[in-house]
């Protein structure tokens, strides 16, 4: 009996070990080991590079160049946004054209990563407003991208190229589509019109059915961020009240949590924000210009959804600034485990003529480190670079 009990115990240990092994193996995916970001090549063209955090090296992956019919130089830099697909074997790159270009087309390149499959390139014209879409992360569910057309929602299968157009029958202002943090659904915002407030909800990726989660009547501050949790039950934004900038967290349209961000001195605008996986803090990129100053600072702000103090990590100080909207081009991403934040200043370098070379970089911030260690991956700035105006 003693032997049998010992044998059973050892077998149980083996079974437990195998279970832990299998669970660990399926979670060691490439998601947090690689970071895609915009970077320059030696000719000043903007492309998409991939930084390998474990190998600590960078590989330029995608470099588009569009020539004008009567010119020999490539036209203005394109706004590029790249994202790994959930399978970890493809990277989708969305090109929205130069900000000066009021075109409404988007080009999507699906690049194989560590696999030998074809590169697919899609060009889709006549989107509702590609320049606005460029400021939002791509909306991807599985391997399908969602885009807003003129009174229609487009669903593009990035692996097969199949395109489906869903015509919207409900009247009202156009929708803006937003990605879900876990990439399993689509969120939308419908702007206010007449007496109708701003509407926030989900769109079923299969049926396109819209479900309103809440209406937002708050007077949102200019330069605010807008973020939400994976179910859309919580929404966070910034309002200005009594000269204070305040964070407001809404649940079903009702404020459940507020806290003061600052006393409203100087200028403060946000690029974008993400809610942590545990919904315990918000990570936002910001641009701050003190009252009377001409230089701005850019950094990351960790806003706990509690009474814990707000923490700011400055990444760029004393940057020559003239326009608050520059913060839109300084948008962070959060790793799936919530421990690392990444943000690149490539487009700031295109818009700010005198940005210092050392400030043009991919910044990786270790949020698990008490001192918030910052790893700076330099993005070499070419001497000549096409400029963009914000």
């Amino acid at each position, binding site marked *: 009996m003693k032997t049998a009990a010992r044998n059973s115990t050892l077998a149980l*240990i083996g079974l437990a070990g195998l279970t832990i092994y299998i669970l660990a193996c399926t979670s060691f995916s490439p998601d947090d080991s690689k970071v895609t970001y915009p970077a320059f090549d030696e000719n000043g063209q903007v492309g998409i590079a991939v930084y390998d955090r474990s190998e600590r090296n960078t590989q330029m992956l995608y470099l588009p160049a569009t020539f004008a019919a009567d010119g020999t130089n490539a036209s203005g830099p394109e706004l590029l946004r790249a994202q790994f697909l959930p399978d970890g074997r493809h990277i989708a790159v969305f090109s929205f054209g130069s900000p000066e270009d009021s075109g409404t087309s988007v080009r999507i390149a699906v690049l194989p990563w560590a696999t030998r499959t074809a590169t697919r390139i899609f060009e889709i014209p006549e989107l509702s407003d590609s320049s606005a879409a460029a400021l939002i992360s791509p909306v991807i569910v599985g391997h399908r991208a969602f885009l807003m057309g003129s009174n229609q929602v487009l669903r593009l299968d990035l692996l097969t190229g199949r395109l489906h157009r869903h015509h919207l029958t409900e009247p009202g202002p156009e929708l803006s589509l937003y990605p879900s943090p876990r990439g399993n659904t689509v969120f939308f915002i419908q702007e206010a019109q007449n007496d109708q407030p701003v509407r926030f909800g989900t769109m079923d990726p299969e049926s396109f059915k819209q479900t309103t989660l809440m209406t937002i009547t708050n007077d949102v501050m200019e330069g605010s961020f807008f973020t939400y949790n994976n179910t859309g039950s919580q929404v966070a934004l910034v309002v200005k009240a009594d000269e204070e900038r305040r964070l407001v967290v809404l649940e079903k349209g009702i404020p459940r949590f507020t806290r003061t961000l600052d006393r409203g001195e100087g200028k403060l605008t946000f690029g974008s924000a993400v809610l942590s996986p545990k919904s315990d803090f918000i990570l936002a990129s910001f641009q701050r210009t003190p009252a009377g100053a001409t230089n701005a600072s850019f950094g990351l702000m960790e806003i706990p959804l509690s009474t814990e103090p707000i923490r700011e990590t400055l990444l760029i100080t004393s940057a020559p600034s003239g326009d608050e909207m520059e913060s839109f081009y300084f948008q962070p991403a959060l790793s799936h485990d919530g421990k690392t934040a990444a943000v690149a200043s490539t487009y700031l370098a295109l818009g700010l003529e005198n940005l210092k070379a050392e400030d043009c970089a991919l910044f990786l911030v270790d949020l698990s480190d008490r001192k918030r260690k910052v790893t700076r991956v330099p993005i070499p700035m070419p001497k000549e670079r096409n400029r963009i105006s914000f």
Partner: protein
Amino acid sequence: MMESLHELFGFVCGQNPDRTWWLAGVPLPFCQRCTGLYTGAATAFILHLVLRPILTNRFLKVHGAFLVFMAPFGFHWVTHGPMIRTITGVLFAFGLVAFLRLPLLAQAPVAGPATQANTRFYMGLALLLILLPIGIQGGGGFMAFVFCFAGLLGFCYLLFLCVANIFAWSAAAWRRLSPMRRVTNDGQA
């Protein structure tokens, strides 16, 4: 067939393409560590079947160490490369197979010295650890087939061991409960 294997192993392996061996231009259906795990399990199955090593206390302690040895590498406490991943997988598989076989055997661990069979068993393990890198570096379609076949065999064997153990525990629990039910039913022992 490769697609079916990819789909099957997708349930138990992350199949990280950056950490998967590519043979003949095609990724194996399991990652580098799982390559070691499943080929190791297949090899352990064959070695146990053919050589029938004696399960001495030392034998079990060595295989227990194989299990523990995985921890610093599996949890990434120690930086390591692709071949180490595979080797740790092999050792882990040998530990797993030894422990999971125990309840299914009639023999109890003995405290005696290692026999010739045990020596040959360890030589078989050493041979696998030598041939594995050669096979991987050599590549080719034939090796890809060998690894896939061995991987599938190892997976099936581990699955069998897990199911057999669960069945054995269930049977033992039932036997323990049965006398108590007889007392309850007729009030007599």
